[in-house]
C-alpha cells in the first residue's frame, strides 16, 4: 500500500495539468490545421465563447453570488470568484478607464501557459485567447455585451499578462417570437 501512496502525487495538480496539456495539444493541432494564425485565434476564441455560455451556469450554481450592481463589482467577482474557482488564480483588477467602462485583469501567472514557449514566427498567435472567449460568452449570458482582448502577454516577453475588458452595452432580454 505504501507504494501506492507514493504514486498518487497530487491528484488536483495532475487534473490541472490535464487541462493545460490538452489545451496546448489543441493549440498546436489548430496551428497545424489552419496555417493562418488569425484563424487559429478566432477558433480558440469561439471555443471559449461556447464554453463560457455554459460555464456561467455552473459558476452561478456553485458560487452563490448575487446580482452585481455595477461593473466594478462584476470585475471583482470575475477576478476573485470566477478565476479562482476555475483556474485557481486571482488576477488583479486595475487600469480602469476614466469613464469606468473598461478595466484590465492582470495575471501574474497564467496556468494555461505553464509548459509553453512560443516558437519563433508565432508572434501573432494569441495563445490564451480562449480566456477572452470564455469571458465574452459568460458575460453575454448575464446580459452584458463586452469586448475582451489581450494587451500584454508574458508569453511574448511582456512583464505581465493583461486582459482588457470593455463593456459595450446591456443586452435586453429577447422574448421569443409569438410570446409576450
Amino acid at each position, binding site marked *: 500500500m505504501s507504494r501506492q501512496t507514493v*504514486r498518487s502525487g497530487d491528484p488536483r495538480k*495532475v*487534473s490541472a495539468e490535464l*487541462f493545460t496539456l490538452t489545451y496546448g495539444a489543441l493549440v498546436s493541432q489548430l496551428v497545424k490545421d489552419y496555417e493562418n494564425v488569425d484563424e487559429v485565434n478566432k477558433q480558440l476564441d469561439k*471555443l471559449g465563447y461556447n464554453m463560457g455560455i455554459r*460555464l456561467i451556469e455552473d459558476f452561478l450554481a456553485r458560487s452563490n453570488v448575487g446580482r452585481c450592481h455595477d461593473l466594478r463589482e462584476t470585475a471583482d467577482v470575475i477576478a476573485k470568484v470566477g478565476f479562482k*474557482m476555475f483556474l485557481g488564480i486571482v488576477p488583479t483588477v486595475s487600469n480602469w478607464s476614466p469613464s469606468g467602462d473598461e478595466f484590465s485583469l492582470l495575471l501574474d501567472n497564467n496556468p494555461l501557459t505553464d509548459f509553453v514557449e512560443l516558437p519563433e514566427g508565432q508572434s501573432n498567435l494569441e495563445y490564451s485567447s480562449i480566456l477572452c472567449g470564455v469571458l465574452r460568452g459568460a458575460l453575454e449570458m448575464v446580459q452584458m455585451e463586452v469586448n475582451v482582448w489581450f494587451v500584454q502577454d508574458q508569453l511574448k516577453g511582456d512583464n505581465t499578462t493583461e486582459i482588457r475588458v470593455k463593456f459595450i452595452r446591456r443586452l435586453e432580454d429577447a422574448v421569443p417570437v409569438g410570446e409576450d
Partner: protein
Amino acid sequence: MADEVLFEFFHMEIVGQFLQSARKDEKESAFTKLEFLGYRVGQRLVERFTKEVPRFKDELDTMKFICKDLWTSCYKKQIDNLRTNHQGVYVLQDNKFRLLTQISEGKQYMEYAPQFLAFPCGLIRGALSNLGIASNVTAEVSAMPACKFQIQIQRL
C-alpha cells in the same frame, strides 16, 4: 478549484470543434485527430506523473496504475473492473465514465458516444506508450455513461 468541470466543458467543445471543421465524409479524420490529441496528452501527462515513482513490476502492474492513479486524477474515480486474458488483451470497464455522464444517460444517444471516447482512448495509448508498451485501444459502449476500453498489446 473546479477545474475538472472546466476540463469536461473543454473536452465537449474540442469534440464539437473537430467534428464541425471536418467535412461530412471525413468524420473519421476528426476521430483520428481527437485520438492523436489524447495520445500526446497521455504521453506528457504520464511522464510528469511517474517522475518519482518506482519502476513497475510488470505489464499488469502498469495497467493497475492506469486504472487507479491515472484514472483517478483525470476522471475522479477508479476503473470499476479490470480484466485480462493474460495474452495481451485488457478490458477496463468504467460504469460511470466522467466524460459521458453529462452527455446522456441510457441508450438514446448511443450513436454520439464514440466521438466522446476517441480522446480518452488516445490518452490511454499515449500513457502506455511512454511506459514502454505499444498498444491499440478501442472503446465500446452498451449504455451510457458506462463504457469499456479494450487494450490490445502489440508484441514486437
